[in-house]
């Protein structure tokens, strides 16, 4: 069955080579999609085992060593091989050139190289997992990671190092593309907020990732050559490692959440048929987050023997960075006012995102507060908080965006009924899984515990129940999206009456995106400019 009569990027070649050596950003995006989905299910499998183990207070399913490897590999897989590349490398890769009216990214070969680097890095990490795993926690704190751990630290760190370069190159590519390749008339403030968010993300990737790279190099040197760099026995400073590590790893959270915010801005606008309330504020807040996000890393070190005064400065700045996020939430909500709101699946995901991100963001205020953080840091409170941001936020947006652009990517609609159900299941399952963990955390349940005191069991059982619901919620889209790729109804070019340039070309798009390059004469989200011959859905 041919998707459309005319040739598009999917039908431009079928051989393996036409995919593995492609320079088309759309195909590379699909390669990424395939890769990160694989890693998502690997990471998900680890999470499942962790949740099953925690059903009982005793350590009865797996040994402590195995448990430690499970949570470490869950974190590493999900963060470095799923979340960081998730939205930028798939949706961003697919859409940024189309949204700004370009035929491809600025450096198509480097784009392909980035994907290969991610795969190579992933293979290192997979090798480490199969060979016996790594047990340092995703944070690699010294001196445990350099001296005491007997696991595959070197292979894993190398994998992350290589994947880091994938991330740097993607960021570099996006920055140059957004600067140089915009279509005539596509001024900075006519760009969709999705592009703004990715621009901010790319800046973080380029500035932050090298610091992680050099930190890992130092750890590797220390582990391989037994020279001391962070070794306290030689007078080294383990807290210095934490500074270097979090200088990247805190902004990394923004690498995950900023693109998600970009997706949500698109969804809210499209399904309200209204420009985003306060476009400039939302765009500016992305940049503000990218800048201030770099200045708050020390809030991970409040109890680490960091100086009290440094702690206060970092706490203050952490509150400052909360404001741009609050501005976004308020503006999204205000966009609904006097809109024309329809409830297709992507919009449901967007509502879910705002809800979960609000809770995640507000609990961030708890952990930014010095007095409370002393109590809740390294407990399940923190675990719940960052899952609300990274899973509740980033993955909800990723799924919402995937549904939204699915007809553009494949030319076909997903089954609306199933999709709505999955959005609801994910939302319920997520809250059931992670809300009890806030309570657990304030009660004092430390994170990374294999065995725990029996009084915490009830809440853990609730969390595990929620996790099984959540797992079903994640499997559903996987199945019906694959199904719809072949059997879904044809979508038409612009099923949602959306404004972006990507909707003004055919679905799936032709090999070079546009038959003729567009000239832009209007701002993003001007719904009066959308051609009338839309196929209405729902």
């Amino acid at each position, binding site marked *: 069955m041919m998707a459309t009569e005319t040739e598009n990027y999917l039908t431009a070649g079928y051989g393996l080579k036409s995919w593995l050596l492609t320079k088309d950003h759309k195909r590379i995006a699909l390669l990424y999609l395939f890769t990160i989905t694989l890693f998502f299910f690997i990471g998900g499998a680890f999470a499942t085992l962790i949740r099953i183990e925690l059903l009982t207070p005793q350590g009865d399913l797996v040994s*402590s060593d195995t448990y430690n490897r499970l949570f470490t590999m869950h974190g590493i897989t999900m963060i470095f091989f799923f979340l960081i590349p998730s939205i930028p490398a798939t949706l961003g890769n697919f859409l940024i050139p189309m949204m700004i009216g370009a035929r491809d990214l600025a450096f198509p070969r480097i784009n392909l190289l980035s994907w290969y680097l991610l795969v190579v890095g992933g293979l290192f990490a997979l090798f480490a997992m199969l060979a016996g795993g790594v047990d340092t926690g995703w944070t690699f704190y010294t001196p445990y990671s350099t001296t005491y751990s007997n696991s595959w630290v070197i292979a894993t760190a190398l994998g992350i190092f290589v994947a880091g370069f994938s991330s740097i190159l993607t960021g570099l590519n996006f920055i140059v593309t957004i600067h140089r390749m915009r279509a005539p008339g596509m001024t900075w403030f006519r760009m969709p907020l999705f592009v703004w968010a990715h621009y901010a993300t790319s800046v973080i990737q380029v500035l932050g990732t090298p610091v992680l790279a050099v930190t890992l190099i130092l750890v590797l040197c220390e582990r391989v050559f037994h020279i001391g760099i962070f070794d*306290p026995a030689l007078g080294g400073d383990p807290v210095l490692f934490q500074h270097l590590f979090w200088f990247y790893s805190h902004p990394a959270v923004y690498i995950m959440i900023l693109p998600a915010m970009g997706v949500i801005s698109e969804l809210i606008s499209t399904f309200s048929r*209204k420009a985003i309330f306060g476009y400039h504020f939302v765009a500016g807040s992305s940049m503000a987050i990218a800048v201030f996000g770099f200045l708050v890393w020390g809030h991970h070190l409040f109890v680490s023997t960091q100086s009290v005064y440094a702690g206060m400065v970092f706490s203050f700045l952490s509150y400052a960075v909360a404001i741009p996020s*609050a501005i976004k939430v308020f503006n999204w909500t205000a966009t609904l006012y006097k809109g024309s709101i329809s409830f297709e699946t992507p919009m449901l995901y967007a509502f879910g995102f705002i809800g979960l991100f609000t809770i995640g963001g507000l609990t961030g205020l708890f952990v930014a507060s010095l007095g409370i*953080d002393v*109590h809740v840091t390294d407990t399940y409170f923190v675990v719940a908080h960052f899952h609300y941001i990274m899973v509740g936020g980033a993955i909800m947006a990723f799924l919402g965006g995937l549904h939204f652009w699915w007809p553009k990517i494949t030319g076909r609609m997903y089954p609306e009924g199933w999709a709505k159900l999955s959005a609801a299941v994910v939302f319920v399952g997520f809250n059931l899984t992670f809300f009890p963990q806030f309570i657990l955390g304030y009660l004092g349940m430390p994170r990374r515990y294999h065995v725990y005191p029996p009084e915490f069991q009830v809440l853990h059982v609730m969390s595990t129940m929620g996790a099984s619901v959540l797992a079903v919620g994640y499997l559903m889209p996987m199945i019906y999206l694959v199904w719809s790729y072949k059997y879904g109804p044809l979508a038409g070019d612009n099923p949602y009456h959306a404004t972006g340039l990507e909707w003004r070309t055919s679905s799936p798009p032709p090999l070079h995106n546009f038959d003729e390059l567009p000239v832009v004469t209007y701002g993003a989200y001007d719904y009066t400019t959308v051609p009338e011959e839309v196929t209405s859905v729902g």
Partner: protein
Amino acid sequence: MKIPLFPDAASNFAPDVDHLYFYLVAVSVFFTVLIFAAIFILAIKYRRRQGNDGIPRDIHPPILVEIVWSVIPFGLAMVMFGWGADIFFRESRPPQNALPIYVVGKQWMWKLEHMEGQREINELHIPVGRPIRLTMTSEDVIHSFYVPAFRTKQDVVPGRYSTTWFTPTQTGKFHLFCAEYCGTKHSGMIGWIYVLSPEDYQNWLSGGNRTGTLAERGEKLFNDLACSNCHKPDNSGRCPTLVNVFGSSVKLTDGQVVKADEAYIRESILRPDAKVVFGYQPLMPTFQGQVTEEDVLELVEYVKSLTPKPPAPAPGVAQASNR
């Protein structure tokens, strides 16, 4: 089955932290309800109706609105910051009369030592109503000393001392956790804090086996390691006397002046030429690798005992809280 929802509050800090927590919960609930309700109401009210497919007019936000919803949350957040920082600052400064206890973390146990010489593993007995000051270090990796009921947590870092303090306000038995991941049996590095009434604490102190107070053991080490050959009480040796050193300001060869605290003494034992006292040669050999962290703690305590404390309470004698 009973589901616990709130932890015990058993230290002077617990009510402070809890009050701040309630404030944050109130703010959070308010905004969560606000956002959820707004989305729900707006989404229903402005839903796309059949046959009304028109394009709504764009609304340009009044700048005032943006300012209001930036400034109000900022104000609320600053209250959180100031309040939290205040608690933290108090948590950082132990009172002078606090009862000192020494803690060494190692994979995977807590070793605790009292001034009077009692040693405990994974258990700590302390009197109610007295400030307790913990001086902590680790023999291997980073650990973290966490007592949820006291709302207190402090990382225990190899190669340096860290400090925390609290005043228990309730007798009872409370969890002690290691909160910083430290390897295989991280979740087994747990213990109990027993908060006793002053009388019970006295009884507990007089029972059990003891091999001299911490300072006495330190003095024995001091002689065994031949430190006493050079560091003479009357300052006649080749090295400075250690009498009255603790707590004083020491001038170094490079003209710097440092305060002689626990960390300074520890460093001088393990890395003697890092800070050489003005007018002396860097003769002292390093004791790195020859003494354990516990030995160092005993030596530190001995050096401290050479500085008479003016009004300090005799160790171990129950004295009512100063608060």
